[in-house]
């Protein structure tokens, strides 16, 4: 089997009709149903062993996808399969093979049970062989220090709770792990380690990781491919390394000249002289000039720099523009660009 996850034309909308209106409708009254579209024909495939990210603003539909794939939400239409099993008709088979770190990861933990006891319950519920040993293994895997294992859940720090939730997701040694906002509450030191763990798929090369997050650095540092979702539609699915290609040339090959705040006025004079050179496009933003030269010629770019210095402008820096993933995402979302 090549695909771990297959999603085909998934649609989901939430009925936001008020309770009293729904009751009135039951008795024949005419009311309009208020619906919010969460997913509008989403399709994608995730390969076995892939780290797949879903990025998008709040309310884009990320968590809805995770909930459907983890069998706790029923879609209106479309089909979703995890490891070949239908998430509705064969939900039990799906649940046997997945691990989930949900957005609100505190749910399902006993607050007056220790970290160890909480996991032990799940180890029994999953019918794991050697449950105590397995609990110890995953607690070590997520680097929850042994001194905290016997602490009540409610006395753990936010970061420790998140580690425990991660341990719960990994407990059944799942083939597919769903991580919904996994770095929320983790300390900076552990986030770096966590990225490494995701990259290594928690020690199993064949494991598929489905990541829903706002954390762009996490996506950039771990994902093989990323889907960008907005208003319930997938607007792009690309390998992370190719995401930058979605940004127009004019942005990718431009140069940036940053000047001292005292030279801001002279920057406007410089702009007037740019017409003498082979400049295709430019924009001034406060004390920063961004411009695109024809064919990306470094010579022409250097001419601009010389002109700036000759005009008495104090230059702070001059460099080719580096596009970061955040900017790429922002541009894709603003542009509503369709890509696959």
């Amino acid at each position: 089997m090549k695909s771990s996850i297959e999603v085909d034309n998934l649609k989901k909308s939430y009925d936001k009709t008020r309770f009293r209106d729904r009751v009135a409708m039951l008795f024949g009254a005419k009311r309009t149903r208020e619906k919010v579209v969460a997913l509008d024909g989403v399709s994608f495939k995730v390969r076995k062993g892939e780290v797949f990210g879903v990025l998008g603003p709040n309310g884009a539909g990320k968590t809805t996808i995770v909930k459907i794939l983890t069998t706790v939400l029923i879609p209106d239409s479309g089909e979703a399969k995890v490891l070949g099993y239908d998430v509705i008709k064969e939900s039990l088979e799906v649940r046997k093979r997945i691990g989930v770190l949900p957005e609100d990861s505190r749910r399902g933990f006993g607050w007056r049970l220790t970290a160890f006891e909480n996991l032990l319950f799940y180890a029994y519920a999953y019918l794991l062989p050697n449950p105590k040993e397995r609990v110890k293994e995953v607690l070590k895997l997520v680097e929850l220090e042994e001194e905290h294992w016997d602490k009540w859940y409610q006395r753990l720090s936010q970061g420790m709770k998140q580690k425990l939730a991660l341990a719960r997701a990994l407990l059944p040694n799942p083939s597919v792990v769903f991580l919904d906002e996994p770095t929320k509450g983790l300390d900076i030191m552990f986030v770096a380690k966590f990225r490494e763990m995701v990259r290594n798929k928690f020690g199993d090369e064949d494991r598929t990781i489905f990541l829903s997050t706002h954390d762009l650095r996490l996506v950039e540092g771990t994902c093989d491919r990323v889907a960008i979702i907005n208003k319930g539609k997938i607007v792009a699915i690309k390998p992370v390394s190719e995401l930058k290609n979605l940004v127009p040339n004019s942005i990718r090959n431009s140069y940036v000249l940053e000047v001292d705040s005292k030279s801001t006025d002279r920057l406007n004079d410089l702009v007037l002289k740019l017409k003498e050179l082979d400049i295709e496009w430019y924009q001034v933003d406060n004390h920063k000039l961004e411009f695109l030269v024809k064919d990306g010629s470094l010579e022409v770019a250097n001419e601009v720099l010389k002109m700036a210095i000759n005009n008495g402008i104090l230059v702070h820096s001059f460099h080719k523009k580096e596009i970061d993933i955040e900017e790429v995402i922002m541009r894709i979302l603003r542009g509503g660009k369709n890509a696959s």
Partner: protein
Amino acid sequence: MQAKRLLGFLYIDFKAWLAYKYELFFWLLNTVVGAFTYAFLGTYVTLYEKELMVKYGSFLSFLIVGMAYNYIIYTSLMAPRMAINPWNLMWRLLIPAKLYEIIIGSVLFRYLIGIFQFLTYFAVATLFGAKFNIDPISTLTAIILGVAVMWGLGMISAGIQVITKRWDPVTWFFTMLSGLFSGVWFPYQLLPEPLQYVSLILPQTYILEMLRGAMLRAKSLTLMMDQLIPLVLSAIITISIGYFIYMKSIEYAKERGTVGEY
């Protein structure tokens, strides 16, 4: 102490109390029904003490069977609802288990605790001279049927709460009425005759009658057909309806995306 400050506390609590209109209404109703329950208990039990002694051995023995109902059978009404509280529901549903395994697993401990509590009452009552005349088969049958009926009602109650997220009318209805009408604290025959008709439509009345017959008078099953048949029918009906409503409500919550909501 500043009276004005205390007035402020009173004011917000009063406003919050008024804000839950349904609960307020049923709180008032519970208060009235509760008051009547204790009035009947205080008045008629004293008046008819001799008759009680003849029929049940003693008022203490009579009450202890009421406790068996409360701690073992009544638990079934509450258990399915407690098993699916929103804090745990989503995670319970993520476990690779069948729904009935999740429900039974979630409530098993409550039964053990209930049995322990009942046995404590039973032992202490025996020390105080309470007499029991038990038919084991009838007792076990009464408990199983009682649990089955209440389990069915509990599933209906849980199903409603998965949707409403708050109060459900089923638990309230059976909890409130059982104290006054079903004979937990005093025999329902002590009620004025028109009110006894209410008792006769409640399954708890039959459960308690059968339980008392089995535990206090060692009645065999053949002598308790008047309770046995209605209870078997009630169990079949309530469990069928309860399971249907429960499954449908989980499906409904999954469709609406409200599984983890309060």
